[in-house]
């Protein structure tokens, strides 16, 4: 039994890291910003943390803090031009931002190791630490969701004219969502750096973008449970389909298509809606 758990521990570690990234993606979508820049912020945070440890030999706590702050700073800067764009244009601009970060990373060979990546990062983060940070991130998202900010984000996402007419500052709230997204991505990028010995520039490219977006789309966009469920399914599923070897990504793709078509709100949100509708119906019968 112990062997069994030990065998799956790395998978659980990946889940915890990707959960943070999924929440980073989730919070911007929640506030009505169609940004896909999470992968770039994660890269910025990871490399900052990695360089702090490798080149400067600083304590991991400082590295993580630096990763979080640089992720957040990049997000705040990016949010200024992005506020002028809408919808798909935001998506395209953020994809371009990911490519820019990737290119800069490869050019800045002296600092980042270029295409060879950043190696020999001391592994200082284990499952326990990851679990604590993932739990904190979940709490943060949950707290935002049920308070004033969650209500404002929801309104902006659904109807900007209504939001403005009720006194909600759209630019301020979207910048805040962006800052949170950047900080979360930077933090979990930093955790990834201290957890995996080495960083590769392509790790934070288009593939990570698709992965984090899939977690949120599959799980659900409107409740904290969505990313929790989405990341769990998409990380476990390829493992279950291991006998299919090379073809297992096909299963991944088919499942996304099925879910997007039949459960457009995502698995968790659809389930929550069903429970609510049922409660309402039963309540109606009672009265």
């Amino acid at each position, binding site marked *: 039994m112990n062997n069994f758990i030990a065998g799956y521990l790395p998978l659980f570690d990946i889940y915890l890291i990707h959960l943070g990234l999924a929440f980073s993606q989730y919070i911007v979508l929640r506030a009505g910003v169609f940004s896909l820049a999470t992968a770039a912020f994660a890269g910025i945070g990871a490399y900052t943390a990695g360089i702090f440890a490798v080149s400067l030999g600083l304590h991991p706590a400082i590295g993580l803090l630096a990763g979080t702050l640089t992720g957040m700073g990049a997000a705040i800067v990016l949010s200024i031009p992005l506020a002028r764009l809408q919808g798909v244009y935001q998506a395209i601009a953020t994809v371009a931002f990911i490519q820019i970060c990737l290119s800069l990373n490869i050019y800045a060979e002296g600092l980042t190791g270029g295409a060879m990546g950043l190696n020999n990062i001391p592994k200082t983060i284990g499952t326990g630490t990851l679990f604590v940070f993932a739990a904190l991130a979940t709490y943060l998202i949950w707290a935002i969701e049920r*308070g004033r900010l969650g209500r404002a984000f929801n309104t902006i996402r659904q109807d900007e004219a209504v939001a403005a007419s009720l006194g909600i500052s759209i630019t301020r709230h979207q910048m805040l969502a962006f800052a949170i997204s950047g900080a979360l991505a930077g933090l979990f990028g930093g955790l990834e750096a201290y957890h995996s010995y080495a960083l590769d520039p392509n790790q934070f490219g288009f593939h990570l973008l698709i992965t984090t977006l899939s977690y949120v789309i599959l799980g659900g966009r409107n409740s904290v449970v969505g990313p929790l469920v989405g990341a769990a399914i998409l990380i476990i599923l390829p493992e279950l389909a291991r006998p299919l070897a090379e073809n297992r990504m096909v299963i991944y793709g088919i499942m996304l298509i099925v879910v997007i078509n039949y459960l457009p709100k995502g698995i968790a949100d659809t389930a929550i809606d069903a429970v609510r509708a049922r409660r309402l119906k039963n309540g109606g019968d009672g009265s």
Partner: protein
Amino acid sequence: MSTLKLTNLSKRFGGVVASEDVNIEVPAGKIIGLIGPNGAGKTTIINMITGMLAVSGGEIHVGDIDITHAPAHEICRAGLARTFQNIRLLGEATVLENVMIGFHRHETSATLAAMLGLPSAGRETVEIKERAQVMLKEFDLQDFADYPATGLSYGHQRKVEMARAMAAEPNFVLLDEPIAGMNNVESDALAEVFQRLASAGKGVLLIEHNVRFVAKMCSYVYVLDGGRLISQGTPDHVLSDPAVISAYLGDQQYA
């Protein structure tokens, strides 16, 4: 008591004149009507007042405060609330949540407290929920609190939107065709609500197609046609004005 005052307000879309030199005053505690045929520019005026359209010329004041070029969310904070011609409720939210968001401008908990879910933020949420429930009761909507807002009947949706606007506790309310598509019973119920607002000291600007309803509700009426005011005065005066009759029914030679 303050007044909402539009001075020589103009809006041009390129060469198209949507409003020109419009002067309107909405004193506190009064219901003021704004009527006009389709395309007269009524909604344009509301959109300019609420900051959703940039003003091309003229000024808008609430009391002494100039809100002509203020961004939309600050105008709400100056004490203005509106409803929309085509009802705009949040489709993914319940009736209660739709009204709760109306209280946004009175939420004071610190951003950090709201982010970290500190007790102060939690208390505020509970308090706003209670106030929203009271508001729903005032509009006789308490039984629908947990229903998805867009699943309600048309008349009820109108009331939810009204409750949401009232939650902001405005001094001035801009109603864009609030009784369009309603039957008499529903519109009478709303008429009572409007009267209550006015007697509570709020200034109400009522935009309507339904001339009879406006005549019944308003103490003073402005008539807009082609972006210009063509008449103003008491309902009786305005409705017998030949300029108004020809704007609504066409010129006599064609009638």
